């Protein structure tokens, strides 16, 4: 059965696939690649924040670990496949360590432990100069060329990123509907009850952390291939806060929310900063507006406001005020 929803998805994919054609300019194609790679990062964090109710402020640490691991292997002269596999394995291992330490607690405790772990990664990247090259960072000299297709051009890199992005969205969609996804949401809403029902709450959260870490690692790899450079700045707390803002402003526990959030932040950073020097201020104002009028996030908030507007419009057209449209309360 084909529903309007299917139509919207097909249209969105069509627009994304044809984007390099109608955007034309390399600069904007690169911005689109950035949006997609940060969307993958935000989707990964959303697994924990949205579905697990576990707010992490250390994900930039995992993101940077993937980047550094990949960059170091490439620097040592190995191929891209080896670098990528190694980076993912290291990120999974680091995620496991993060999870074991942070899952001793939930809520603020979880947030503080992840924050501390992220800062440790930043500190190591900054101070362990003999390996990480400290503040100077590491250059990634080449992009991979899968099946002989070089990703050094803006449009080919965009298509590779789009492919990974679509895979991430598909995985998340399946995950959300699956029994395991339902289990994770259950531990968010009623951890105590879930235990009494026979669920191993700790293990569910641990596996969700690994899942989140995996896609964070993928995003980290896309990031170093995009920038061809990594420095300690990537692991900084601002990076963790930024991706968390993407998730929260877009709408937690939704699939579209983190993507919309990533788009807002990346566009502000790249486009608005070209016109307004204090673009951070604009970003701040945008977030304040979103949180004031749509505390549940941009995507669920827009849906609510549209519904409200539609109801009002219909009521006016019918000329009857049998039932006033519901107030757009959060």
């Amino acid at each position, binding site marked *: 059965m084909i529903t309007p929803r299917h139509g919207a998805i097909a249209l969105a994919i069509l627009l994304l696939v044809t984007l390099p054609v109608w955007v034309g300019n390399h600069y904007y194609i690169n911005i689109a690649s950035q949006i997609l790679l940060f969307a993958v990062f935000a989707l990964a964090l959303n697994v924990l924040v949205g579905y697990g109710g576990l707010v992490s402020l250390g994900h930039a640490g995992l993101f940077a670990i993937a980047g550094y691991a990949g960059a170091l292997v490439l620097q040592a002269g190995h191929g891209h496949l080896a670098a990528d596999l190694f980076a993912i394995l290291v990120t999974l291992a680091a995620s496991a360590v993060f999870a074991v330490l942070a899952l001793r607690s939930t809520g603020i405790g979880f947030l503080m432990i992840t924050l501390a772990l992220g800062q440790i990664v930043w500190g190591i990247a900054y101070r362990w100069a003999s390996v990480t090259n400290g503040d100077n960072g590491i250059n990634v000299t080449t992009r991979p060329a899968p099946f002989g297709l070089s990703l050094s051009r803006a449009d080919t890199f965009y298509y590779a990123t789009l492919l990974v992005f679509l895979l991430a969205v598909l995985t998340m969609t*399946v*995950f959300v*509907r*699956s*029994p*395991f*996804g*339902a*289990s994770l*949401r*259950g531990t968010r*809403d*009623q951890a*105590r*009850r*879930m*235990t*009494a*029902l*026979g*669920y*191993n*709450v700790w293990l569910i959260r641990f596996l969700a952390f690994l*899942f989140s870490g995996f896609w964070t690692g993928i995003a980290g790899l896309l990031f170093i291939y995009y920038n061809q450079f990594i420095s300690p700045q990537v692991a900084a707390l601002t990076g963790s806060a930024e991706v968390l803002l993407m998730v929260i402003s877009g709408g937690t526990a939704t699939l579209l929310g983190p993507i919309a959030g990533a788009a807002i932040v990346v566009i502000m950073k790249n486009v608005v900063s070209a016109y307004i020097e204090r673009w951070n201020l604009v970003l701040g104002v945008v977030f304040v507006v979103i949180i004031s009028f749509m505390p549940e996030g941009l995507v669920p908030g827009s849906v609510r406001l549209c519904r409200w507007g539609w109801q009002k419009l219909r009521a006016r057209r019918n000329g009857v005020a049998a039932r006033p449209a519901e107030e757009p309360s959060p």
Partner: protein
Amino acid sequence: MTALCVNALSKSFGGLRVTANVNLNVAPGERRLIIGPNGAGKTTLFNLITGEIAPDSGSVLLFDQDITRLPSHRRAHLGMARTYQIITLFPHDTILRNVTLALLGLSRLRWDPFIDLDRQHDLVTRAREALVRVGLDHIVHRPLSETSYGERRRVEIAMALAQAPKVLLLDEPFAGLSIDERRDVRELLQKIPRDVTIVMIEHNMDVALDFAERITLLHFGEVIVEGTRAEVVADPRTREVYLGH
């Protein structure tokens, strides 16, 4: 053989002894009522039995198997189910999803990240059957946030029954219900077959007296009286701590 055996169980919170050397032997199929005034340690006893908190000393046996050190979630797989005095459900989900989650908890499918939960017809059918038993099958798709208090009580019971437990622990299932709702819940509990052993906590003795064969009276964490309904009601100590004022 006993269905549930509690041996010399003790627990203190700081200087406060909430469970003091409690012994309890519940036979298979028995209906046991645990009564006691507010703060007698009834819910704490349940939390010790289900493993939500660990005892300082003593042991808990389920069908002669020592489960004292077993994590709480493993006990559910051995046939122990409970309801909560303060309703503990999934507010964002429908009634059907709430009960499906109860069934999923005992199914290996709960680890599966690839399949669509809504298409697991076996689980969904069994969840509907549990809801038929509690008379909620006409509103299975209603979000829990739009249900009444009495309906939520019945969802609690449906979730416990769906798991086909061997030992069912009911923590004040009549709390906060109207007279009509109480009657419905009582009839519902009376229909539960005898292969389920039931231990029920009740604060208000009159509500649940006719339900139980044996009654245990708890006061300040200690078992004061235990016996048949008539024995406990007639005992002067019961009157003293409970009825007598």
